[in-house]
């Protein structure tokens, strides 16, 4: 039944937004994880979204959900801070903080949760439409 495709589409989007929320949580949780080298310090993680082009058999790529291709690490340089007395400081007296931008992450979180709610609404409306159709003729 094709009406159930709406549920697949909205479901895939909820899944993707969930991954996005998880990366935001991970980034914020590690926002102040300090390291003694630029390589070992935590780097902000970002999900990569891509539209799913299904239905290639009849070559009618009109509808498709969204998928997460993967999670990439931010290439921004870590924040270096000169603190020679810090126990994690390296030989030159620097400590390395993650390249996580808390404000960006909060904005990302709000955008993700709004999109999630949007898709929940789509699912609810589609459910009402289907249930009303099932009640036709009663």
């Amino acid at each position: 039944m094709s009406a159930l495709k709406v549920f697949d589409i909205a479901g895939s989007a909820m899944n993707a937004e969930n991954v996005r929320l998880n990366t935001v949580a991970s980034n914020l949780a590690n926002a102040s994880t300090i390291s003694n080298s630029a390589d070992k310090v935590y780097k902000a993680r970002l999900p990569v979204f891509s539209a799913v082009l299904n239905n290639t058999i009849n070559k009618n790529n009109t509808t498709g959900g969204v998928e997460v291709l993967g999670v990439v690490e931010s290439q921004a340089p870590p924040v270096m801070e000169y603190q020679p007395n810090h126990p994690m400081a390296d030989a030159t007296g620097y400590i390395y903080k993650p390249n996580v931008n808390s404000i960006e992450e909060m904005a990302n979180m709000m955008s993700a949760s709004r999109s999630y709610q949007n898709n929940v609404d789509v699912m609810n409306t589609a459910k009402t439409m289907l249930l009303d159709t099932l009640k036709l003729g009663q």
Partner: protein
Amino acid sequence: MAINFNSVLGIHPQALVLREKRGEILAANMANADTPDYKARDLDFHSLLNNSLGNTSNNSAVVLQQTSQEHMPGQNVVLGAQVLYRNPQQSSLDGNTVESHIEQAKFAENAVQYESSLSFLKGQFSNLLLAIKGQ
């Protein structure tokens, strides 16, 4: 006098199928609201209406000729209506043309139109029942 379902139900059974398909396309738009380079799509009802009214002259789309089974069609057609791309009011830097508020409004509009076709069908069915029972 025989009862003809086609004349009793009118355009509404086809309208339901079309609304359902449009709901799918709009849901896909909202699902991809954060996907870079995704282009929002929608059904072109005007082309469908014009085609059914017979005046194809002012809206005749250029159709690519397909000389092989393997060729992809130049345009996507759902139940006679073309699936076109939406012109964004304000496009975003990542190439995405989905505007959530517009898609939400269109989706709600589509749902209401679906429900109205449905309630019309319900009314016609209860009329038929009344005619059959005669009371």
